[in-house]
Each structure stands twice: as structure tokens, then as C-alpha cells.
């Protein structure tokens, strides 16, 4: 019977085909217990395959801690992570740009393999939850058939490159950053210099400084479009920021350079990658982001080291080849521009119009924001949305970091028509970018690190605030609320006017879900400043805290124009704390049990469901990865041999040895060329002749397998010698593992 692999064979690029097949082989190796679970975990993370709450085989059902006996028994997909447990798949959407065909495919996959819901993340990705790992290769193939990869969506690599969702249509931008973010995405995807990080690395692009757009101030690498004028000649380039980041310890970014010309963007990013891989922390994951390296070295020293690295980088034609195509870049509107003249007597529409429309720099067009409650939409809505996009805007669709979708190039004359169509499928919610458009990370719903129900709280706030929104003061309406389920800030609470992150308190042995109140963060100016923690309040009381703070702000602001951030700074932490103190009291368990459970979850609150997070990935060195790749290749060689494909078996077993040798050489010579002659020469010089590769009993026997194979020019491959090659390769790889262990333990 046909399968997706065969059916889509002609629709997937060779590169993706190979990568997905390799992942499938690694899954098979894991099933057979031939991979270290730690390495497999990082391998799957780098393909976007993430763990999910309850994958450690237990769940607190509100009465007792229950074992979840998954049918595959003790088969694991990572440390403390059961194979059969439902997991998450993160789909990378560079700068949030999707087309209709991709939307339809993602809708199909959500209903066939997940729970029928697509979740838009705060990094312009799409996530599926409750997916079985066995289904991942087919999902990846079907995504690949429409040009999507999940490669490096998680793990200690360059994550999805985000960009301003209105780039190219914005009235305030210096220029459109889209083609640059696309070029950098392609350049760094799988780049050898970005495979050995101690933690993830996040990049964002913004077209202007004033607005939130790309939030360059909170990224590992923030890229801000800038035009420099010299003697009347305008030159495109970027202001670069490094070392920003939220998380438990928030760091505002430092300016790396006031201006780099456009042709320097890719090489400098590469050099930063190299420096981060070489000098970044690897053991202590809590200190392994680039922000800590910048803080440790100081920005001046960091810049100096990076520029020194930049100067010695081997030239790469891709650094500038994309620049020639830039003049031709641009989205083409599906319809001619038109003006919006009519007075429509539809209050709902007018309300939507006041918050969800951005009039583009191109006259006669608008970008509309589809506000998604909690970033979710159903597969059914997604398919209908693709039809609406087809009719009005073609492929001009983007996801934004506020978990919404934008449709660009809508002719102004079509605004009412498109509103009516969106309204029919429940996607015409007003209030985009206002206080009711609450952002939230997954929290305790699906995240292993979640402490409190961020989605539950966000949903409740959205519901309550939407009811009040018609009579709300404009100054309140313009505030932003963001919620994280723990201190890690995936909900970006630091840069919200009103932010919350989950924690817990205990009273007489009972746990109570709480949220820390963080006020005064700045969304504008690219996440310009971070809010201050004011105190933890029981989760059930947070809606009242929001009311109290916003009402006080309106009542006590100095003048009508005093910004919320300025108000918070002026009145100070002590005063704010005195306002919210009345909500901090917790009744006895027997008097009011509602405090002791979380939003939308009737179970008594506990922390027993928390697990080990995978956000930080596993610390796996590049050498360990390459040795694992060699393992996979020799395993595939064995399969080819079993299928009587002796020539392929020979080729793969030889490649496996080369791969293992290269992994070892890289410890001493990072830029070893990837060709057999160079690898064998270096191996001989550095490991064979120095006896580092020697076995206590077999001496140089295993090393000679590689050298002999390189020197053997005979082209005859038969069943007997193919078998010998595969066996020799297996022994060589075992010896390489042993040599690596000796080197890392300091034995040789």
C-alpha cells in the first residue's frame, strides 16, 4: 500500500527528503536502544519535536498521582520522556509568512495528527499539540511538500527568525526587512557554525525603532533597518543589537554597532555564531544564553572578538549573492487599490475597523489583523481563512508575535466584505493589539515547566475585559497584557504594560496558584524597557487586580497624556503594592476552595505535574552529534546490506567512518574540509600516528580500517566484502566513541 513517503517523493526537495529519512532512521535506532536518549532528545528537538506535560508517565488527577501506562512500555524518546506520550510539534514559519497552500496543509495535519487546533506562538511559529512521535516523519514530509521545514524549530540552535509583520507596507520603516530576514534564515539554517551552542539563539528584524515590530531589544541578535547618508548617497544597512533576552533574568540588548552595511549582515551574524559556540557557557544552562556571554565579556570586548572572527572567516558567496535579487523583491497585490468611502451602519464592524486595521503606506490598501483568542484557530477555520485569503489577498498572509494573523494588501473598498466573511467563521474579533488581546504561553495546559494556568487566566481576562471594552477609557484600551505560566517569560510578560507570571504559595500544606504582577514594561520602541515585579497575588484575584490598577491609573494620572509606564514609575512600587495587597489574602481551604484550584481546571492545585523542561535542550556537543550521525549511517549501511544493495552498503559504511573521523578531528581543527583526502590525512596525522586512536589490545587495527579503505581503489563490491566493510565501519565507530571519551576525560 502506498505511503506518504512514496506519494510525495516528487514534491519534496532532495535535501529535505534526506533529512527526514535520516530522522526516521534515528527514530528506529532509538526504538532499538542504540542511541543515547540524551542525544536523541536533542536530535528530535532540532527537528521541532518537543515534549509535553505528562510525558514522564504520571499525572496528578486531583485525587492521586496516577501512573500513565503508555502501551509502548519503557521505550523512551529522551530522558524521562515516554515514547507513546503525546508531544508537541513546532513548525518554523520564517518571519511568519505563510501562503494559502501551506495554511490548508497545516489545517489537514492538525486534524489528522493533532487535536484539530493550530496554535500561533509568540515567535511567529505554528504549534500542534498531542501528536504521537510515530507520526512525525509523515507530518514533516507533508509540510515539506509545501515548502515548510521544522528543522531547528527547537533545540540549541538558531530558532525561527522573526520580523515585523507589516514590513514592506509600514509607513514608518526605513526599508522592507523581509528579504534580509529571509536571506539570513536560509544562510543560518543548518549552518555548521551554529550547531554547537550551549543554548538557543533568537534573531529578529525590525524596520523602525519607534514601534514594537520585531522587538529587537529583547533578542540575542536584533537587526534594525537603517539608512546612512554620506555625501548625498544613501546606503542601506542595519543597527545591530546583541545580548537581549527575557527569561528568568531579563537583559535589554546592547548596541553591537550603530551601522553595518547590508553586505556585512550575514558574515557578522556568522561570526557571532562562531564566537557564541566557542565561548558561550555549555555546562550551566541557566547562564548559557548569549546575553550572559555579552555581560561577562562586556560589549566592547564582545564586539572586538566578533570582528576579529569576522576578519578571518573564509569567504562565502552567499553573503552577498542575495543582494542582487533585492530590487525585484516585493509582494504583488491581488487586487487594485480602492478607497473606503461608504458609511456602514454596523457598530460591530466599526468597532473592528477602529482596532484591527492598519492603513498601509501604499494608498488604497490595508493590513487587517485577525485577533485569535489565545493564539488558537481550528483546522476548519484555517481552511476557510485560506479561501478568504485566496479571494482577497492571495498569499500575503503573516503571523505576528501577538499570536494573531495578518492579511496584507486588502483593498480598502473590500474591508466590509472581508469583515463579513471573517465574522461568519468567528474570526472577526475586534480589539487586536488592545487590552483584550491578551497574549499567553501554553503554561500548565501543555508545558512541562508551567506552574500556573496562563491560558486559563488569559482566557478569563479576555472574556471579562471584552464585556467592558465598549465603556473603557481609551488609555486603558491601549494597554497590553501578557501572561507567562512561569518565570521563563515565553508569554513576554516583561514587555507588557501589565504582565503576569505564574508561581505558587503554600498555606497549611495546601498549594495555591499565584501570579506575580509585573507592571510598566514597554511594548513600543521594540520592547524598550522591562516591567517591575510588584508582588504575587492568588490567581483567582488577578482580574480584580487588573481592574484596580487600571482604574487607579485613570483616576490618578497627572494629566490625560501621562503614559502608563510613567505613572507606574512615578507612583512607585510601594504604592502599587499597597493597592494590590488587599487581594493577597488567602482564605482557609475549608472556607473557600476556589483559591486552591486554577482557572479552567477543577483539580486541586499541585506542582506534581511539573517535569523537566526541554526549552534548554540537551547539551550535546557537535562531535557527539557527528558520531551519532556516523552511527546512523552505519545502521543504514547494515539495512542496505540486508536488502542486498552491496554498493550502497559499501558507500554508506565508508561515509560513516569518514564522518566519525571528522568529528574527532574537529576537536583540534574546527574547519577541517569535508573531503575524504583531507579527513584521512588529518586523521592519520592527529590520531593514528599519535596513537590517540589506539586500542589497548587491538592497537592501531581499527584506525587502519579507514586508512586502508581510503587507499583501496578497487571498485569491485560483492556480498562478502560489503559485509566486511560494514563490520569494519561499525568497529571503527566504536573506537571513535572510545577515543572521544578518552579525550574529553583528559586521558589522552
Amino acid at each position: 500500500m502506498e505511503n506518504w513517503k512514496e506519494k510525495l517523493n516528487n514534491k519534496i526537495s532532495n535535501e529535505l527528503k534526506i533529512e527526514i529519512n535520516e530522522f526516521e532512521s534515528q527514530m528506529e535506532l532509538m526504538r532499538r536502544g542504540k542511541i543515547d536518549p540524551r542525544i536523541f532528545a536533542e536530535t528530535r528537538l532540532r527537528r521541532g519535536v518537543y515534549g509535553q506535560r505528562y510525558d514522564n508517565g504520571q499525572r496528578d488527577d486531583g485525587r492521586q498521582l496516577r501512573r500513565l501506562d503508555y502501551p509502548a512500555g519503557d521505550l523512551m524518546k529522551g530522558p524521562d520522556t515516554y515514547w507513546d506520550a503525546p508531544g508537541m510539534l513546532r513548525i518554523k514559519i520564517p518571519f511568519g509568512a505563510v501562503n494559502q497552500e501551506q495554511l490548508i496543509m497545516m489545517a489537514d495535519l492538525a486534524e489528522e495528527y493533532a487535536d484539530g487546533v493550530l496554535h500561533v506562538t509568540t515567535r511567529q511559529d505554528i504549534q500542534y499539540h498531542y501528536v504521537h512521535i510515530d507520526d512525525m516523519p509523515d507530518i514533516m514530509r507533508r509540510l515539506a511538500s509545501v515548502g515548510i521545514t521544522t528543522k531547528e524549530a527547537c533545540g540549541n540552535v538558531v530558532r525561527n527568525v522573526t520580523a515585523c509583520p507589516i514590513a514592506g507596507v509600514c509607513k514608518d520603516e526605513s526599508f522592507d526587512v523581509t528579504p534580509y530576514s529571509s536571506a539570513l534564515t536560509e544562510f543560518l539554517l543548518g549552518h555548521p557554525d551554529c550547531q554547537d551552542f550551549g543554548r538557543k539563539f533568537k534573531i529578529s528584524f525590525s524596520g523602525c525603532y519607534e514601534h514594537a515590530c520585531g522587538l529587537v531589544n529583547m533578542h540575542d541578535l536584533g537587526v534594525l533597518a537603517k539608512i546612512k547618508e554620506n555625501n548625498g548617497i544613501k546606503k542601506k544597512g542595519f543597527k545591530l543589537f546583541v545580548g537581549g533576552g527575557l527569561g528568568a533574568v531579563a537583559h535589554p540588548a546592547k548596541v553591537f554597532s550603530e551601522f553595518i552595511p547590508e553586505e556585512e549582515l550575514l558574515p557578522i551574524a556568522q561570526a557571532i555564531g562562531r564566537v557564541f559556540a566557542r565561548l558561550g557557557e555549555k555546562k550551566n544552562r541557566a547562564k548559557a544564553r548569549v546575553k550572559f556571554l555579552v555581560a561577562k565579556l562586556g560589549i566592547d570586548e564582545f564586539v572586538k572578538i566578533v570582528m576579529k572572527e569576522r576578519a578571518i572567516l573564509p569567504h562565502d558567496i552567499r553573503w552577498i549573492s542575495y543582494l542582487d535579487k533585492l530590487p525585484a523583491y516585493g509582494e504583488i497585490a491581488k487586487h487594485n487599490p480602492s478607497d473606503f468611502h461608504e458609511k456602514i451602519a454596523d457598530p460591530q464592524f466599526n468597532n473592528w475597523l477602529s482596532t484591527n486595521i492598519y492603513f498601509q503606506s501604499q494608498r488604497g490598501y490595508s493590513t487587517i489583523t485577525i485577533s485569535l483568542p489565545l493564539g488558537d484557530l481550528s483546522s476548519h477555520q484555517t481552511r476557510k481563512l485560506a479561501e478568504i485569503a485566496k479571494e482577497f489577498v492571495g498569499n500575503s498572509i503573516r503571523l505576528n508575535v501577538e499570536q494573531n494573523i495578518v492579511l496584507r494588501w486588502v483593498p480598502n473598498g473590500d474591508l466590509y466584505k472581508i469583515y463579513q466573511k471573517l465574522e461568519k467563521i468567528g474570526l472577526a474579533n475586534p480589539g487586536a493589539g488592545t487590552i483584550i488581546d491578551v497574549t499567553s504561553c501554553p503554561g500548565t495546559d501543555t508545558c512541562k515547566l508551567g506552574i500556573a494556568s496562563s491560558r486559563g487566566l488569559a482566557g478569563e481576562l479576555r472574556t471579562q475585559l471584552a464585556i467592558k471594552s465598549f465603556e473603557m477609557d481609551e488609555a486603558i484600551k491601549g494597554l497590553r497584557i501578557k501572561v507567562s505560566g512561569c518565570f521563563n517569560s515565553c508569554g513576554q510578560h516583561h514587555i507588557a504594560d501589565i504582565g503576569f507570571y505564574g508561581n505558587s504559595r503554600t498555606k497549611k500544606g495546601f498549594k495555591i496558584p499565584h501570579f506575580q504582577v509585573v507592571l510598566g514594561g514597554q511594548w513600543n520602541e521594540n520592547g524598550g524597557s522591562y516591567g517591575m515585579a510588584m508582588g504575587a497575588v492568588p490567581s483567582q484575584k488577578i482580574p480584580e487586580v487588573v481592574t484596580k490598577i487600571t482604574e487607579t491609573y485613570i483616576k490618578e494620572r497627572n494629566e490625560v497624556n501621562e503614559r502608563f509606564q510613567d505613572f507606574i514609575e512615578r507612583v512607585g512600587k510601594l504604592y502599587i503594592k499597597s493597592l494590590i495587597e488587599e487581594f493577597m489574602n488567602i482564605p482557609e481551604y475549608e472556607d473557600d476552595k476556589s483559591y486552591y484550584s486554577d482557572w479552567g481546571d477543577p483539580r486541586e492545585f499541585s506542582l506534581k505535574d511539573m517535569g523537566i523542561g526541554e526549552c534548554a535542550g540537551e547539551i550535546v556537543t557537535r562531535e557527539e552529534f557527528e558520531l551519532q550521525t556516523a552511527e546512523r549511517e552505519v545502521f543504514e549501511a547494515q539495512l542496505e546490506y540486508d536488502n542486498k544493495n552491496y554498493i550502497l552498503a559499501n558507500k554508506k559504511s565508508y561515509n560513516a567512518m569518514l564522518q566519525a573521523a571528522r568529528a574527532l578531528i574537529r576537536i583540534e581543527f574546527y574547519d577541517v574540509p569535508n573531503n575524504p583526502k583531507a579527513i584521512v590525512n588529518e586523521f592519520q596525522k592527529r590520531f593514528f600516528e599519535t596513537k590517540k586512536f589506539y586500542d589497548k589490545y587491538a592497537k592501531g587495527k581499527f584506525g587502519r580500517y579507514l586508512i586502508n579503505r581510503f587507499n583501496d581503489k578497487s571498485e569491485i563490491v560483492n556480498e562478502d566484502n560489503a559485509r566486511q566493510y560494514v563490520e569494519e565501519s561499525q568497529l571503527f565507530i566504536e573506537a571513535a566513541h572510545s577515543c572521544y571519551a578518552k579525550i574529553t576525560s583528559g586521558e589522552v
Partner: protein
Amino acid sequence: MHKVGIKKMISKFDIKLEKIIFIFHEWIQKDIIPEHLTIDVTDYKHIPDGPGIMLITHEGNISIDFENNQVGLLYMRKQPLCKTQLENIIKIKSILNFLVNELENHKDLKGKLKFKENYKIILNDRLYFPNNDSSKEILISIIEKVFQGMKLSIINSSLNSRLTIDIQE
């Protein structure tokens, strides 16, 4: 070929949707569904056209589903079940009716929630059962055996949607 969903339509829904969250958690605590590993409850009531409240089990997802503004209880099978498609559909129908019975007779829902003999069958597998004439022919011949005497009609709601058949008394 096990990936099939059956939705039984609800004629009376006089409860707050939140109540279903409590009941699904209770089902996990009491482990009431035979041959199912119950895992968690998800709340999607904020999606107007979505799965409402969903009970995730290893074997299948169970939800109060609102697609196309038609409320019903949907059981969507995820793991292999029987050898033939006919047996699959018979078994999935029986699991669904077990769940329907549990809901209708729940002490907090009695008289407030009622189902009708209307179903929707969804073939949730575009590889083995693409939405084409050949799949329709196979599916209809099976459904006629399982739902004898009922009226069948094909639903084609949108581009690339799954093969779905509406079954009415």
C-alpha cells in the same frame, strides 16, 4: 485506516460548557472508559468553530465539538482498532454510544443534555481515504450496514476537507 471519527449530534444542550470540564476530569479520576488511557482535558471553548472541550486519550480524542455550529459529541480514533473498516466503524460507534450514555445519565446533566439519532462520520485519513468517488463508494457500502435504514448524504464543506457523511433518521 483506523483514523475515523463519529460525531453524534446533540438536540438539547442546556448546560454551561465548563461543566463538561468537570465531567471529563471525573472520567479520568474514575477511569471509566474501557480500553482507553485517559490523559488530560483541554479547554478550547474560546474557538467558536472548534472542538470545545476535549478529553485526550492515547487511543482517541473525545470532544464536545462545535464545527459548523453543530454541537455534538465526537470520538476521533487515533490508534489501530480492528482488522476491517466495517469492524472499525461498528466498534467506534459502540465506544461513542457508551460515552453518550455516560453523559446523558450523569447526575448533573440529567434532562439537560439530550442526543438525537443523527451522526456524522469523518474519514480522517487523506492517504487511504481521500475525498473521492472510490472512497465514497467504500464508505457508503459500510455505513449502510452499520446504520441500516438511515438517510445518508455526503458533506463537502470546503477545499480539501475530509470525506464526511451525514446520517439522519
